Protein backbone atom coordinates (compact mmCIF):
# COMPACT_ATOMS: atom_id res chain seq x y z
CA UNK A 1 0.00 0.00 0.00
CA UNK A 2 1.57 3.24 -1.09
CA UNK A 3 -0.97 5.56 0.47
CA UNK A 4 -3.96 7.28 -1.00
CA UNK A 5 -4.61 10.69 -2.50
CA UNK A 6 -7.08 11.76 0.16
CA UNK A 7 -4.22 12.14 2.60
CA UNK A 8 -3.09 15.14 0.58
CA UNK A 9 -6.18 16.93 1.81
CA UNK A 10 -6.89 15.28 5.14
CA UNK A 11 -3.44 15.49 6.68
CA UNK A 12 -2.89 19.22 6.10
CA UNK A 13 -6.43 20.02 7.27
CA UNK A 14 -5.94 18.00 10.41
CA UNK A 15 -2.61 19.71 10.94
CA UNK A 16 -4.16 23.11 10.29
CA UNK A 17 -6.73 22.52 13.01
CA UNK A 18 -4.05 21.15 15.31
CA UNK A 19 -1.51 23.92 14.86
CA UNK A 20 -3.21 26.52 17.08
CA UNK A 21 -3.33 23.93 19.86
CA UNK A 22 0.26 22.86 19.36
CA UNK A 23 1.30 26.50 19.36
CA UNK A 24 0.02 26.74 22.92
CA UNK A 25 2.40 23.97 23.93
CA UNK A 26 5.55 25.14 22.18
CA UNK A 27 5.58 28.16 19.92
CA UNK A 28 8.20 26.81 17.57
CA UNK A 29 5.86 23.97 16.56
CA UNK A 30 3.86 26.49 14.59
CA UNK A 31 6.76 26.81 12.22
CA UNK A 32 7.88 23.21 12.27
CA UNK A 33 4.63 21.32 11.81
CA UNK A 34 3.75 22.67 8.33
CA UNK A 35 7.20 21.64 7.17
CA UNK A 36 6.81 18.16 8.55
CA UNK A 37 3.42 17.85 6.90
CA UNK A 38 4.77 19.03 3.57
CA UNK A 39 7.76 16.70 3.80
CA UNK A 40 5.47 13.79 4.48
CA UNK A 41 3.21 14.78 1.61
CA UNK A 42 6.18 15.10 -0.72
CA UNK A 43 7.34 11.59 0.10
CA UNK A 44 3.80 10.37 -0.37
CA UNK A 45 3.46 12.21 -3.66
CA UNK A 46 6.69 10.82 -5.05
CA UNK A 47 5.71 7.30 -4.01
CA UNK A 48 2.28 7.64 -5.53
CA UNK A 49 3.66 9.19 -8.69
CA UNK A 50 6.07 6.30 -9.15
CA UNK A 51 3.23 3.89 -8.60
CA UNK A 52 0.95 5.75 -10.99
CA UNK A 53 3.51 6.00 -13.76
CA UNK A 54 3.74 2.23 -13.76
CA UNK A 55 0.30 1.00 -12.82
CA UNK A 56 -2.03 3.70 -14.07
CA UNK A 57 -4.17 6.22 -12.20
CA UNK A 58 -5.53 5.86 -8.70
CA UNK A 59 -9.12 6.90 -8.16
CA UNK A 60 -10.00 7.59 -4.57
CA UNK A 61 -13.57 7.53 -3.39
CA UNK A 62 -14.81 9.67 -0.55
CA UNK A 63 -17.41 8.56 1.99
CA UNK A 64 -17.79 5.20 0.36
CA UNK A 65 -19.96 6.30 -2.55
CA UNK A 66 -18.77 5.36 -6.02
CA UNK A 67 -18.12 8.26 -8.36
CA UNK A 68 -21.27 9.47 -9.97
CA UNK A 69 -22.71 9.68 -6.47
CA UNK A 70 -19.87 10.72 -4.23
CA UNK A 71 -16.90 12.96 -4.61
CA UNK A 72 -13.75 11.34 -5.91
CA UNK A 73 -10.10 12.25 -6.21
CA UNK A 74 -8.06 11.26 -9.24
CA UNK A 75 -4.33 10.84 -9.00
CA UNK A 76 -3.30 10.27 -12.58
CA UNK A 77 0.09 10.81 -14.13
CA UNK A 78 -1.02 14.32 -15.12
CA UNK A 79 -2.52 15.45 -11.84
CA UNK A 80 0.09 13.54 -9.89
CA UNK A 81 2.86 15.35 -11.68
CA UNK A 82 1.32 18.72 -10.84
CA UNK A 83 0.67 17.73 -7.25
CA UNK A 84 4.24 16.60 -6.76
CA UNK A 85 5.51 19.81 -8.30
CA UNK A 86 3.26 21.94 -6.10
CA UNK A 87 4.16 20.19 -2.90
CA UNK A 88 7.83 20.30 -3.74
CA UNK A 89 7.63 24.03 -4.35
CA UNK A 90 5.55 24.44 -1.24
CA UNK A 91 8.20 22.69 0.80
CA UNK A 92 10.86 24.94 -0.69
CA UNK A 93 8.80 28.00 0.13
CA UNK A 94 8.47 26.72 3.67
CA UNK A 95 12.21 26.15 4.02
CA UNK A 96 12.86 29.55 2.54
CA UNK A 97 10.51 31.40 4.82
CA UNK A 98 11.28 29.39 7.93
CA UNK A 99 13.90 31.91 8.92
CA UNK A 100 12.79 34.66 6.57
CA UNK A 101 9.97 35.29 8.97
CA UNK A 102 12.14 34.83 12.01
CA UNK A 103 11.71 38.36 13.21
CA UNK A 104 7.95 38.15 12.98
CA UNK A 105 6.01 37.74 16.18
CA UNK A 106 4.28 34.58 17.20
CA UNK A 107 0.73 35.27 16.05
CA UNK A 108 1.51 36.51 12.54
CA UNK A 109 3.93 33.64 12.14
CA UNK A 110 1.21 31.21 13.11
CA UNK A 111 -1.10 32.76 10.58
CA UNK A 112 1.51 32.96 7.87
CA UNK A 113 2.35 29.28 8.02
CA UNK A 114 -1.28 28.29 8.33
CA UNK A 115 -2.25 30.30 5.30
CA UNK A 116 0.71 29.03 3.34
CA UNK A 117 -0.16 25.44 4.09
CA UNK A 118 -3.79 25.96 3.19
CA UNK A 119 -2.77 27.70 -0.03
CA UNK A 120 -0.89 24.59 -1.04
CA UNK A 121 -3.65 22.27 0.15
CA UNK A 122 -6.26 24.20 -1.78
CA UNK A 123 -4.24 24.09 -4.95
CA UNK A 124 -3.55 20.41 -4.54
CA UNK A 125 -7.26 19.89 -3.99
CA UNK A 126 -8.10 21.73 -7.20
CA UNK A 127 -5.81 19.42 -9.09
CA UNK A 128 -6.89 16.19 -7.43
CA UNK A 129 -10.63 16.56 -7.24
CA UNK A 130 -12.95 14.92 -9.69
CA UNK A 131 -16.00 16.99 -8.88
CA UNK A 132 -16.74 20.46 -10.19
CA UNK A 133 -18.37 21.86 -7.08
CA UNK A 134 -15.64 20.44 -4.91
CA UNK A 135 -13.23 22.26 -7.13
CA UNK A 136 -15.12 25.48 -6.39
CA UNK A 137 -14.64 24.88 -2.68
CA UNK A 138 -10.93 24.31 -3.12
CA UNK A 139 -10.64 27.39 -5.28
CA UNK A 140 -12.20 29.37 -2.46
CA UNK A 141 -9.79 27.88 0.07
CA UNK A 142 -6.90 28.83 -2.16
CA UNK A 143 -8.20 32.33 -2.81
CA UNK A 144 -8.91 33.17 0.79
CA UNK A 145 -5.44 32.08 1.83
CA UNK A 146 -4.08 34.08 -1.06
CA UNK A 147 -6.01 37.18 0.07
CA UNK A 148 -4.55 36.81 3.50
CA UNK A 149 -1.02 36.23 2.28
CA UNK A 150 -1.20 39.20 -0.06
CA UNK A 151 -2.20 41.45 2.80
CA UNK A 152 0.33 39.92 5.14
CA UNK A 153 2.69 42.87 5.28
CA UNK A 154 1.44 45.90 7.10
CA UNK A 155 2.38 48.44 4.45
CA UNK A 156 -0.42 50.53 3.02
CA UNK A 157 -0.30 48.96 -0.40
CA UNK A 158 -0.69 45.32 0.48
CA UNK A 159 -4.26 45.83 1.64
CA UNK A 160 -5.02 47.62 -1.61
CA UNK A 161 -3.66 44.74 -3.66
CA UNK A 162 -5.55 42.27 -1.56
CA UNK A 163 -8.79 44.20 -1.90
CA UNK A 164 -8.53 44.18 -5.67
CA UNK A 165 -7.88 40.47 -5.48
CA UNK A 166 -10.98 40.00 -3.31
CA UNK A 167 -13.12 41.94 -5.78
CA UNK A 168 -11.95 39.90 -8.72
CA UNK A 169 -12.11 36.68 -6.74
CA UNK A 170 -15.73 37.30 -5.77
CA UNK A 171 -16.69 37.96 -9.36
CA UNK A 172 -14.86 34.81 -10.33
CA UNK A 173 -16.75 32.69 -7.87
CA UNK A 174 -20.03 34.17 -9.09
CA UNK A 175 -19.33 33.09 -12.63
CA UNK A 176 -18.01 29.74 -11.51
CA UNK A 177 -21.20 28.96 -9.61
CA UNK A 178 -23.33 30.09 -12.55
CA UNK A 179 -21.42 27.78 -14.85
CA UNK A 180 -21.64 24.87 -12.43
CA UNK A 181 -25.37 25.35 -12.09
CA UNK A 182 -25.93 25.47 -15.84
CA UNK A 183 -24.14 22.15 -16.18
CA UNK A 184 -25.96 20.67 -13.21
CA UNK A 185 -29.37 21.78 -14.39
CA UNK A 186 -28.89 19.92 -17.61
CA UNK A 187 -27.04 16.79 -16.65
CA UNK A 188 -28.03 16.32 -13.03
CA UNK A 189 -24.53 15.46 -11.95
CA UNK A 190 -21.45 17.21 -10.67
CA UNK A 191 -18.91 14.51 -11.30
CA UNK A 192 -16.38 15.42 -13.98
CA UNK A 193 -16.20 12.02 -15.58
CA UNK A 194 -19.96 11.67 -15.55
CA UNK A 195 -20.34 15.11 -17.13
CA UNK A 196 -17.72 14.28 -19.71
CA UNK A 197 -19.64 11.16 -20.61
CA UNK A 198 -22.94 12.96 -20.99
CA UNK A 199 -21.93 16.37 -22.26
CA UNK A 200 -22.64 15.61 -25.91
CA UNK A 201 -26.33 15.44 -25.05
CA UNK A 202 -26.38 19.01 -23.87
CA UNK A 203 -27.89 21.93 -25.73
CA UNK A 204 -24.92 23.54 -27.52
CA UNK A 205 -25.85 27.09 -26.57
CA UNK A 206 -26.00 26.23 -22.90
CA UNK A 207 -22.79 24.30 -23.22
CA UNK A 208 -20.97 27.24 -24.77
CA UNK A 209 -22.33 29.73 -22.26
CA UNK A 210 -21.26 27.58 -19.37
CA UNK A 211 -17.84 27.07 -20.92
CA UNK A 212 -17.46 30.82 -21.29
CA UNK A 213 -18.41 31.36 -17.67
CA UNK A 214 -15.95 28.69 -16.59
CA UNK A 215 -13.14 30.21 -18.55
CA UNK A 216 -13.94 33.66 -17.21
CA UNK A 217 -13.99 32.48 -13.64
CA UNK A 218 -10.88 30.36 -13.88
CA UNK A 219 -9.20 32.89 -16.11
CA UNK A 220 -9.34 35.38 -13.29
CA UNK A 221 -7.31 32.98 -11.18
CA UNK A 222 -5.13 31.94 -14.10
CA UNK A 223 -4.33 35.55 -15.01
CA UNK A 224 -5.67 35.61 -18.55
CA UNK A 225 -5.27 39.04 -20.03
CA UNK A 226 -8.29 41.22 -19.47
CA UNK A 227 -9.00 39.42 -16.21
CA UNK A 228 -5.63 39.74 -14.54
CA UNK A 229 -5.68 43.22 -13.10
CA UNK A 230 -5.18 41.92 -9.61
CA UNK A 231 -2.18 39.79 -10.40
CA UNK A 232 0.72 42.25 -10.67
CA UNK A 233 -0.38 44.07 -7.54
CA UNK A 234 -0.76 40.89 -5.54
CA UNK A 235 2.59 39.51 -6.66
CA UNK A 236 4.33 42.77 -5.95
CA UNK A 237 2.88 43.32 -2.50
CA UNK A 238 2.91 39.79 -1.15
CA UNK A 239 6.05 38.62 0.67
CA UNK A 240 8.72 37.35 -1.73
CA UNK A 241 8.30 33.63 -1.13
CA UNK A 242 4.55 34.01 -1.50
CA UNK A 243 5.08 35.53 -4.93
CA UNK A 244 6.91 32.35 -5.79
CA UNK A 245 4.06 30.31 -4.40
CA UNK A 246 1.55 32.27 -6.48
CA UNK A 247 3.53 31.81 -9.66
CA UNK A 248 4.42 28.23 -9.00
CA UNK A 249 1.38 26.84 -7.29
CA UNK A 250 -1.83 28.88 -7.45
CA UNK A 251 -1.68 29.82 -11.09
CA UNK A 252 -0.72 26.31 -12.05
CA UNK A 253 -3.79 25.00 -10.29
CA UNK A 254 -6.03 27.47 -12.11
CA UNK A 255 -4.49 26.60 -15.46
CA UNK A 256 -4.96 22.96 -14.62
CA UNK A 257 -8.65 23.64 -14.05
CA UNK A 258 -9.04 25.39 -17.41
CA UNK A 259 -7.24 22.55 -19.11
CA UNK A 260 -9.31 19.91 -17.37
CA UNK A 261 -12.48 21.64 -18.50
CA UNK A 262 -11.27 22.08 -22.03
CA UNK A 263 -9.74 18.67 -22.58
CA UNK A 264 -11.79 16.32 -20.50
CA UNK A 265 -15.13 17.78 -19.59
CA UNK A 266 -16.24 19.78 -22.58
CA UNK A 267 -16.20 18.47 -26.10
CA UNK A 268 -16.04 21.82 -27.90
CA UNK A 269 -13.53 21.40 -30.67
CA UNK A 270 -13.14 25.14 -31.20
CA UNK A 271 -12.27 25.78 -27.57
CA UNK A 272 -8.67 24.96 -28.45
CA UNK A 273 -8.35 27.88 -30.84
CA UNK A 274 -10.06 30.01 -28.22
CA UNK A 275 -7.31 29.07 -25.78
CA UNK A 276 -4.71 30.02 -28.36
CA UNK A 277 -6.30 33.42 -28.91
CA UNK A 278 -6.59 34.38 -25.25
CA UNK A 279 -3.21 32.90 -24.45
CA UNK A 280 -1.56 34.84 -27.23
CA UNK A 281 -3.18 38.13 -26.21
CA UNK A 282 -2.13 37.52 -22.62
CA UNK A 283 1.40 36.74 -23.66
CA UNK A 284 1.80 39.83 -25.80
CA UNK A 285 0.19 42.33 -23.44
CA UNK A 286 1.93 41.02 -20.35
CA UNK A 287 5.40 40.88 -21.83
CA UNK A 288 5.12 44.32 -23.34
CA UNK A 289 3.82 45.68 -20.05
CA UNK A 290 6.74 44.10 -18.24
CA UNK A 291 9.42 45.89 -20.19
CA UNK A 292 8.59 49.30 -18.76
CA UNK A 293 8.21 48.30 -15.13
CA UNK A 294 10.04 50.18 -12.45
CA UNK A 295 9.60 47.59 -9.73
CA UNK A 296 11.32 44.26 -9.74
CA UNK A 297 8.52 42.12 -8.41
CA UNK A 298 5.96 43.73 -10.71
CA UNK A 299 8.19 42.92 -13.62
CA UNK A 300 8.43 39.33 -12.48
CA UNK A 301 4.67 39.26 -12.08
CA UNK A 302 4.03 40.41 -15.62
CA UNK A 303 6.57 37.95 -16.88
CA UNK A 304 4.77 35.22 -15.00
CA UNK A 305 1.46 36.24 -16.56
CA UNK A 306 3.06 36.12 -19.97
CA UNK A 307 4.42 32.66 -19.37
CA UNK A 308 0.97 31.47 -18.38
CA UNK A 309 -0.30 32.85 -21.66
CA UNK A 310 2.31 30.80 -23.45
CA UNK A 311 1.26 27.72 -21.51
CA UNK A 312 -2.33 28.25 -22.63
CA UNK A 313 -1.18 28.69 -26.22
CA UNK A 314 0.70 25.41 -26.01
CA UNK A 315 -2.32 23.66 -24.56
CA UNK A 316 -4.39 25.22 -27.31
CA UNK A 317 -2.59 23.25 -30.01
CA UNK A 318 -4.58 20.31 -28.79
CA UNK A 319 -1.93 17.82 -29.81
CA UNK A 320 0.11 15.51 -27.66
CA UNK A 321 3.23 17.49 -28.47
CA UNK A 322 1.45 20.67 -27.45
CA UNK A 323 0.42 19.23 -24.11
CA UNK A 324 3.91 17.93 -23.55
CA UNK A 325 5.35 21.35 -24.32
CA UNK A 326 2.86 23.05 -22.03
CA UNK A 327 3.63 20.72 -19.17
CA UNK A 328 7.34 21.19 -19.68
CA UNK A 329 6.78 24.92 -19.70
CA UNK A 330 4.75 24.73 -16.50
CA UNK A 331 7.47 22.74 -14.78
CA UNK A 332 10.22 25.06 -15.89
CA UNK A 333 8.23 28.14 -15.12
CA UNK A 334 7.42 26.93 -11.64
CA UNK A 335 11.05 26.25 -10.85
CA UNK A 336 12.63 29.22 -12.57
CA UNK A 337 10.12 31.81 -11.51
CA UNK A 338 10.38 30.62 -7.93
CA UNK A 339 14.13 31.04 -8.12
CA UNK A 340 13.68 34.54 -9.51
CA UNK A 341 11.25 35.50 -6.78
CA UNK A 342 13.44 33.99 -4.08
CA UNK A 343 16.64 35.64 -5.20
CA UNK A 344 14.92 38.84 -6.33
CA UNK A 345 13.40 39.44 -2.93
CA UNK A 346 16.86 39.39 -1.41
CA UNK A 347 18.18 41.75 -4.03
CA UNK A 348 15.67 44.40 -2.98
CA UNK A 349 15.36 43.23 0.60
CA UNK A 350 15.88 46.41 2.55
CA UNK A 351 14.49 48.92 0.12
CA UNK A 352 11.09 50.42 0.69
CA UNK A 353 10.14 51.06 -2.91
CA UNK A 354 11.50 47.78 -4.31
CA UNK A 355 12.54 49.60 -7.44
CA UNK A 356 14.63 47.93 -10.09
CA UNK A 357 17.21 50.65 -9.48
CA UNK A 358 17.91 49.19 -6.06
CA UNK A 359 19.56 46.12 -7.52
CA UNK A 360 22.36 48.18 -9.05
CA UNK A 361 25.72 46.71 -8.26
CA UNK A 362 24.34 44.05 -5.94
CA UNK A 363 26.69 41.42 -7.33
CA UNK A 364 29.48 42.79 -5.16
CA UNK A 365 27.51 42.28 -1.98
CA UNK A 366 25.42 39.22 -2.77
CA UNK A 367 27.46 37.27 -5.30
CA UNK A 368 25.66 33.94 -5.03
CA UNK A 369 22.19 35.42 -5.02
CA UNK A 370 23.04 37.55 -8.01
CA UNK A 371 24.49 34.63 -9.91
CA UNK A 372 21.38 32.59 -9.23
CA UNK A 373 19.16 35.43 -10.35
CA UNK A 374 21.17 35.70 -13.55
CA UNK A 375 20.87 31.96 -14.13
CA UNK A 376 17.15 32.23 -13.58
CA UNK A 377 16.87 35.15 -15.97
CA UNK A 378 18.84 33.37 -18.66
CA UNK A 379 16.85 30.23 -18.13
CA UNK A 380 13.44 31.85 -18.34
CA UNK A 381 14.12 33.53 -21.65
CA UNK A 382 15.09 30.12 -22.97
CA UNK A 383 18.81 30.40 -23.51
CA UNK A 384 20.59 27.09 -23.71
CA UNK A 385 22.01 25.26 -21.83
CA UNK A 386 19.46 26.10 -19.16
CA UNK A 387 16.13 24.42 -18.56
CA UNK A 388 13.99 27.00 -20.33
CA UNK A 389 15.45 26.20 -23.70
CA UNK A 390 14.01 22.73 -23.94
CA UNK A 391 10.52 23.85 -23.15
CA UNK A 392 10.73 26.68 -25.65
CA UNK A 393 12.00 24.28 -28.27
CA UNK A 394 9.17 21.88 -27.60
CA UNK A 395 6.59 24.67 -27.75
CA UNK A 396 7.90 25.76 -31.11
CA UNK A 397 8.09 22.23 -32.40
CA UNK A 398 4.52 21.67 -31.36
CA UNK A 399 3.50 24.91 -33.06
CA UNK A 400 5.22 23.89 -36.26
CA UNK A 401 3.57 20.51 -36.15
CA UNK A 402 0.21 22.23 -35.92
CA UNK A 403 1.15 24.56 -38.79
CA UNK A 404 0.89 27.67 -36.65
CA UNK A 405 3.61 29.75 -38.23
CA UNK A 406 2.11 33.06 -37.11
CA UNK A 407 2.07 31.86 -33.52
CA UNK A 408 5.72 30.95 -33.79
CA UNK A 409 6.64 34.37 -35.13
CA UNK A 410 4.72 36.13 -32.38
CA UNK A 411 6.12 33.93 -29.64
CA UNK A 412 9.65 34.52 -30.83
CA UNK A 413 9.13 38.26 -31.14
CA UNK A 414 7.78 38.39 -27.63
CA UNK A 415 10.78 36.37 -26.50
CA UNK A 416 13.01 39.16 -27.71
CA UNK A 417 11.10 41.63 -25.58
CA UNK A 418 11.39 39.30 -22.62
CA UNK A 419 15.09 38.98 -23.23
CA UNK A 420 15.55 42.73 -23.20
CA UNK A 421 13.98 43.37 -19.85
CA UNK A 422 15.65 40.47 -18.11
CA UNK A 423 19.00 41.51 -19.53
CA UNK A 424 18.50 45.01 -18.25
CA UNK A 425 18.07 43.74 -14.73
CA UNK A 426 21.04 41.40 -14.96
CA UNK A 427 23.14 44.23 -16.29
CA UNK A 428 22.08 46.40 -13.42
CA UNK A 429 23.04 43.74 -10.92
CA UNK A 430 26.44 43.16 -12.39
CA UNK A 431 27.61 46.27 -14.15
CA UNK A 432 26.06 49.27 -12.50
CA UNK A 433 27.41 51.18 -9.57
CA UNK A 434 25.43 51.01 -6.42
CA UNK A 435 23.37 54.17 -6.01
CA UNK A 436 20.95 53.79 -3.19
CA UNK A 437 22.25 53.57 0.33
CA UNK A 438 20.03 50.67 1.30
CA UNK A 439 22.05 47.99 2.97
CA UNK A 440 22.14 44.66 1.21
CA UNK A 441 20.78 41.84 3.30
CA UNK A 442 22.68 38.56 3.32
CA UNK A 443 20.43 35.61 2.57
CA UNK A 444 19.89 33.21 5.39
CA UNK A 445 21.26 29.72 5.17
CA UNK A 446 17.83 28.26 4.42
CA UNK A 447 17.17 30.71 1.65
CA UNK A 448 20.53 30.08 0.10
CA UNK A 449 19.97 26.35 0.28
CA UNK A 450 16.62 26.62 -1.46
CA UNK A 451 17.98 28.84 -4.18
CA UNK A 452 20.91 26.52 -4.79
CA UNK A 453 18.59 23.56 -5.06
CA UNK A 454 16.49 25.37 -7.63
CA UNK A 455 19.56 26.49 -9.56
CA UNK A 456 20.85 22.93 -9.58
CA UNK A 457 17.54 21.69 -10.93
CA UNK A 458 17.64 24.29 -13.69
CA UNK A 459 21.08 23.15 -14.72
CA UNK A 460 20.15 19.50 -14.38
CA UNK A 461 17.15 19.83 -16.67
CA UNK A 462 19.20 21.98 -18.99
CA UNK A 463 21.95 19.43 -19.40
CA UNK A 464 19.88 16.31 -19.00
CA UNK A 465 16.25 16.91 -19.98
CA UNK A 466 15.60 13.18 -20.00
CA UNK A 467 15.35 13.45 -16.24
CA UNK A 468 11.83 14.76 -16.66
CA UNK A 469 10.70 14.18 -20.22
CA UNK A 470 9.66 10.59 -19.67
CA UNK A 471 7.34 11.56 -16.88
CA UNK A 472 5.99 14.50 -18.89
CA UNK A 473 5.22 12.26 -21.84
CA UNK A 474 3.23 9.96 -19.59
CA UNK A 475 1.46 12.91 -18.02
CA UNK A 476 0.48 14.36 -21.36
CA UNK A 477 -0.70 10.99 -22.57
CA UNK A 478 -2.87 10.68 -19.49
CA UNK A 479 -4.43 14.10 -20.12
CA UNK A 480 -5.12 13.37 -23.77
CA UNK A 481 -6.87 10.08 -23.10
CA UNK A 482 -10.34 11.24 -22.19
CA UNK A 483 -12.02 7.88 -22.59
CA UNK A 484 -9.59 6.25 -20.23
CA UNK A 485 -10.25 8.92 -17.63
CA UNK A 486 -13.99 8.39 -17.79
CA UNK A 487 -13.53 4.67 -17.65
CA UNK A 488 -11.17 4.82 -14.70
CA UNK A 489 -13.50 6.94 -12.66
CA UNK A 490 -16.85 5.43 -13.52
CA UNK A 491 -15.97 1.77 -13.56
CA UNK A 492 -15.44 1.66 -9.81
CA UNK A 493 -17.72 -0.56 -7.85
Amino acid sequence: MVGTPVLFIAIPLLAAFLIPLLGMIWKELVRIVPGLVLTYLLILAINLLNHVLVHGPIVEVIAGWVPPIGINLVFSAFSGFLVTLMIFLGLLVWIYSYRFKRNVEYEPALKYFLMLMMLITGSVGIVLTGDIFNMFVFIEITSISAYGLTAFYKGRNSAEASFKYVMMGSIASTFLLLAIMIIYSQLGTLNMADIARKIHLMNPTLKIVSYIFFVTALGIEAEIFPLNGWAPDAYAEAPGPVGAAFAGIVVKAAVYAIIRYTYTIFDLSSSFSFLIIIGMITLIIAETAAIRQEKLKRMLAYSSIGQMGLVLVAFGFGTKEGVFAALFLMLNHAIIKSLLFFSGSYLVYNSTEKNIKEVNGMSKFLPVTSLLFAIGAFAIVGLPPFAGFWSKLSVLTAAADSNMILIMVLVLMVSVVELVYYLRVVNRIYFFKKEADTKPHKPTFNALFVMLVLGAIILLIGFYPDAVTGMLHKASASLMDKGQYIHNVLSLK
Partner: protein
Amino acid sequence: MDSTLFHYLDYAVYGTAILVMLIGFYGTMVKKSLLKIVISLSVIDSGLNLLIVTIGYYKGGTAPIFSPGFLKNFKDVSKMVDPIPQALVLTAIVIGFGVTAVALALVIRLYRHHGTLNIDEIKNLKW
Protein backbone atom coordinates in the same frame (compact mmCIF):
# COMPACT_ATOMS: atom_id res chain seq x y z
CA MET B 1 -56.05 33.50 -16.05
CA ASP B 2 -54.24 32.21 -13.07
CA SER B 3 -52.13 29.83 -15.04
CA THR B 4 -50.92 32.53 -17.44
CA LEU B 5 -50.08 34.78 -14.55
CA PHE B 6 -48.18 32.00 -12.88
CA HIS B 7 -46.46 31.32 -16.14
CA TYR B 8 -45.14 34.85 -16.07
CA LEU B 9 -44.19 34.30 -12.49
CA ASP B 10 -41.90 31.49 -13.64
CA TYR B 11 -39.87 33.97 -15.53
CA ALA B 12 -40.15 36.49 -12.76
CA VAL B 13 -38.19 34.31 -10.34
CA TYR B 14 -35.23 33.99 -12.64
CA GLY B 15 -35.67 37.57 -13.75
CA THR B 16 -35.57 38.88 -10.21
CA ALA B 17 -32.55 36.85 -9.31
CA ILE B 18 -30.63 37.93 -12.38
CA LEU B 19 -31.73 41.53 -11.98
CA VAL B 20 -30.49 41.56 -8.39
CA MET B 21 -27.20 40.15 -9.57
CA LEU B 22 -26.89 42.80 -12.26
CA ILE B 23 -27.70 45.55 -9.79
CA GLY B 24 -24.92 44.18 -7.63
CA PHE B 25 -22.54 44.16 -10.57
CA TYR B 26 -23.47 47.73 -11.36
CA GLY B 27 -22.69 48.77 -7.83
CA THR B 28 -19.37 46.93 -7.92
CA MET B 29 -18.28 48.72 -11.03
CA VAL B 30 -19.66 52.21 -10.54
CA LYS B 31 -19.86 53.02 -6.86
CA LYS B 32 -16.80 54.70 -5.47
CA SER B 33 -17.00 53.74 -1.84
CA LEU B 34 -15.18 50.57 -0.85
CA LEU B 35 -17.92 49.66 1.56
CA LYS B 36 -20.47 50.13 -1.18
CA ILE B 37 -18.48 47.74 -3.32
CA VAL B 38 -18.52 45.12 -0.58
CA ILE B 39 -22.25 45.65 -0.16
CA SER B 40 -22.67 45.20 -3.90
CA LEU B 41 -20.69 41.98 -3.78
CA SER B 42 -23.01 40.62 -1.13
CA VAL B 43 -26.00 41.71 -3.22
CA ILE B 44 -24.56 39.70 -6.13
CA ASP B 45 -24.27 36.73 -3.82
CA SER B 46 -27.89 37.09 -2.77
CA GLY B 47 -29.09 37.06 -6.35
CA LEU B 48 -26.90 34.15 -7.22
CA ASN B 49 -28.06 32.06 -4.29
CA LEU B 50 -31.68 32.71 -5.15
CA LEU B 51 -30.96 31.62 -8.70
CA ILE B 52 -29.38 28.38 -7.59
CA VAL B 53 -32.14 27.47 -5.19
CA THR B 54 -34.67 28.23 -7.88
CA ILE B 55 -33.06 25.72 -10.19
CA GLY B 56 -33.75 22.99 -7.69
CA TYR B 57 -37.39 23.85 -7.24
CA TYR B 58 -40.20 21.74 -8.69
CA LYS B 59 -43.73 22.98 -8.73
CA GLY B 60 -45.77 21.34 -6.04
CA GLY B 61 -42.72 19.72 -4.55
CA THR B 62 -42.07 19.24 -0.88
CA ALA B 63 -39.03 20.02 1.16
CA PRO B 64 -36.46 17.23 0.98
CA ILE B 65 -37.10 16.00 4.46
CA PHE B 66 -38.41 12.54 5.19
CA SER B 67 -40.37 13.60 8.20
CA PRO B 68 -42.74 11.06 9.73
CA GLY B 69 -45.58 12.94 8.14
CA PHE B 70 -44.07 12.70 4.71
CA LEU B 71 -43.36 9.04 5.08
CA LYS B 72 -46.95 8.41 6.07
CA ASN B 73 -48.69 10.48 3.41
CA PHE B 74 -46.70 10.76 0.21
CA LYS B 75 -43.85 8.34 -0.08
CA ASP B 76 -43.28 9.69 -3.57
CA VAL B 77 -39.70 10.74 -3.81
CA SER B 78 -40.14 12.39 -7.19
CA LYS B 79 -42.43 14.96 -5.55
CA MET B 80 -39.51 16.21 -3.54
CA VAL B 81 -37.58 19.25 -4.67
CA ASP B 82 -33.98 18.76 -5.69
CA PRO B 83 -31.84 18.83 -2.53
CA ILE B 84 -28.49 19.20 -4.26
CA PRO B 85 -28.74 22.92 -5.14
CA GLN B 86 -29.82 23.56 -1.59
CA ALA B 87 -26.78 21.82 -0.26
CA LEU B 88 -24.60 23.77 -2.64
CA VAL B 89 -26.17 27.06 -1.66
CA LEU B 90 -25.61 26.23 1.98
CA THR B 91 -21.92 25.94 1.22
CA ALA B 92 -21.94 29.01 -0.98
CA ILE B 93 -23.60 31.19 1.66
CA VAL B 94 -21.04 30.26 4.28
CA ILE B 95 -18.15 30.80 1.90
CA GLY B 96 -19.65 34.12 0.82
CA PHE B 97 -19.81 35.19 4.42
CA GLY B 98 -16.15 34.32 4.90
CA VAL B 99 -15.16 36.35 1.88
CA THR B 100 -17.28 39.29 2.99
CA ALA B 101 -15.64 39.25 6.39
CA VAL B 102 -12.19 39.28 4.82
CA ALA B 103 -13.18 42.09 2.48
CA LEU B 104 -14.49 44.15 5.37
CA ALA B 105 -11.31 43.63 7.32
CA LEU B 106 -9.39 44.90 4.33
CA VAL B 107 -11.69 47.90 4.10
CA ILE B 108 -10.95 48.71 7.71
CA ARG B 109 -7.24 48.50 7.09
CA LEU B 110 -7.42 50.57 3.97
CA TYR B 111 -9.34 53.21 5.84
CA ARG B 112 -6.77 53.15 8.61
CA HIS B 113 -4.01 53.85 6.08
CA HIS B 114 -5.65 56.15 3.61
CA GLY B 115 -8.28 57.93 5.66
CA THR B 116 -10.76 57.56 2.87
CA LEU B 117 -12.89 54.90 1.28
CA ASN B 118 -12.93 56.41 -2.18
CA ILE B 119 -11.52 53.81 -4.54
CA ASP B 120 -10.25 56.49 -6.91
CA GLU B 121 -7.84 57.68 -4.26
CA ILE B 122 -6.60 54.22 -3.40
CA LYS B 123 -4.52 53.34 -6.38
CA ASN B 124 -0.90 53.46 -5.43
CA LEU B 125 -0.36 50.30 -7.42
CA LYS B 126 -0.74 50.71 -11.09
CA TRP B 127 0.86 50.08 -14.45
